[in-house]
């Protein structure tokens, strides 16, 4: 290994992860349309390729050849910059997510960062700028409303989300994602942290602006929300970012609460088997997203804010305090 320079290893890893993640994006989009179709008793996309499998490629070609419009009232610089902020932060998180581990504990991730989970929160908190600047820079009223909603929603729900995750960090005694997964070798944290898990799932849906929390782009009220004015590839970038964020929070839910690449009941699992477990668990969360979208109606805006501040935040704070007390009374590790 010493002959290969470290930057080359990281580069190869990054290219592989990006390729896999973009493919996952393409097919989770197709899966969403298929599954939603079945849930609504219709076949879903089935014209392009066998069983509609080439639909993502067709969509990509359509996106690329559409005209890229910029409204006259828009702020040209920020209008062009915003989609890139969204996409770069969405992709950046995958640099530190470990997908599996070798038997000797080497993680299957591009980089192993000590403050792993905190760095992911960093990325998502910068990702908000993409949406809020896009709405502002479009220079028309529906995007502005969408962006103001998005900012308020993100700030409110990010707080409860961090609170619910800190419970896991206390139990694991580390912020590195690898350590968190290893700490769940016997018991997945979904059992001791069931309250935190429920809060995490709710806030994760809100953070990624998905139904029933998709007030940011609510078609029936705001036309398209923050991306009303965007078209062509720039809209495509927002679209990719939204799905990548979905994949990120699904992976995080897997790592934080479902034991990552660990098998159930403490079964030893690493390498490709670990990867299989990881993909199964994360895939379940992706399905859960689609399921929610085709089941629940959209929240009303004032109820959304009231729910975030008056229910989620107090409950997650209480959960955090109880966890801290429990760990202080019965220290299980070190």
């Amino acid at each position, binding site marked *: 290994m010493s002959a290969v320079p470290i930057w080359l290893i990281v580069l190869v890893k990054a290219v592989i992860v990006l390729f896999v993640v973009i493919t996952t994006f393409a097919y989770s989009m197709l899966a969403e349309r298929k599954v939603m179709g079945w849930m609504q008793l219709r076949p879903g996309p089935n014209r392009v390729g066998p069983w509609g499998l080439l639909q993502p490629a067709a969509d990509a070609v359509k996106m690329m050849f559409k005209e890229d419009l910029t409204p006259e009232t828009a*702020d040209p*610089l*920020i209008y062009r*910059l915003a989609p890139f902020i969204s996409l770069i932060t969405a992709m950046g998180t995958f640099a530190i997510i470990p997908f599996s581990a070798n038997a000797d504990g080497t993680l299957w991730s591009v980089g*192993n*960062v*000590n*403050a792993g989970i*905190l*760095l992911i*929160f*960093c990325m998502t*908190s*910068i990702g*908000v*700028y993409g949406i*809020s*600047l896009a*709405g*502002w*820079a479009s220079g028309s009223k529906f995007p*502005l409303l969408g*962006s*103001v909603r998005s*900012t*308020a929603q*993100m*700030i409110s729900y*990010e707080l409860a989300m961090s609170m619910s995750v800190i419970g896991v960090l206390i139990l694991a005694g*580390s*912020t*590195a994602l690898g350590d968190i997964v290893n700490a769940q070798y016997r018991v997945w944290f979904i059992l001791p942290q069931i309250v935190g898990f429920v809060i995490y799932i709710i806030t994760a849906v809100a953070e990624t602006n998905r139904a029933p929390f998709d007030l940011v782009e609510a078609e029936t009220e705001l036309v398209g929300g923050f991306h009303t004015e965007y078209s062509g590839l720039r809209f495509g970038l927002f679209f990719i970012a939204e799905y990548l964020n979905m994949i990120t929070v699904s992976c995080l839910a897997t790592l934080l609460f479902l034991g990552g690449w660990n098998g159930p009941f403490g079964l030893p699992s690493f390498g490709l088997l670990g990867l299989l477990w990881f993909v199964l668990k994360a895939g379940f969360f992706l399905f859960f997203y689609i399921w929610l979208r085709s089941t629940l109606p959209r929240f009303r805006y*004032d*109820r959304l804010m*009231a729910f975030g501040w008056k229910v989620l935040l107090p409950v997650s704070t209480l959960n955090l305090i109880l966890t801290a007390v429990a760990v202080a009374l019965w220290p299980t590790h070190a």
Partner: protein
Amino acid sequence: MIAFWILAVLMIASAVFTVSARKPVYSVIGLLANFVCLAGMYLELQAEFLAVIQIVVYSGAILILFVFVIALLSSGVRPFDVGPDRAPRIVIPAAIIAALTLIAITATALRTPAALVRTPVGSTGDANAFGSVADFGVALFTTNLLPFEVTAFILMVAVIGVVLIAGDDDAVTGARRKPRRPGKRESIVKDTVAR
């Protein structure tokens, strides 16, 4: 060292951009770039936790509120529309103060014994490195417990003060009942509960 110079140049450039930009939103973006560069500086000094917190708290929470307010209130107003430009009169005193501060900082830095200056070595993957999460937590809750608690208390007082000043008068004092304006948020909530 190369990273330091790149970050330093970027930081100064973004700071100049922040104060010189015509549109408030451009200033916010300049400040955002500045904060990210500052986080990079912290990373270079091995203060990993501080770097992350710098981005989560300042860029992610505080600065986004700036965008929120600017988008809502003053998207079209340029700074020079607000009042007369008084910049020339304070340029000379400001420059003198800045120069003196710079000299003071440099003098202090030069007088610091070389043994006290930590040479950053190793990578951020080291869990026991200076500035790691664990290290930071120990320092915060043992040596610096009192300042930490006092800061938390002051912040709490500030929050309560804001709620008192900005909040509903009726709810706080119980007196001074004002006629309720239509479309007020509170009335919507009460309607919902009643139904």
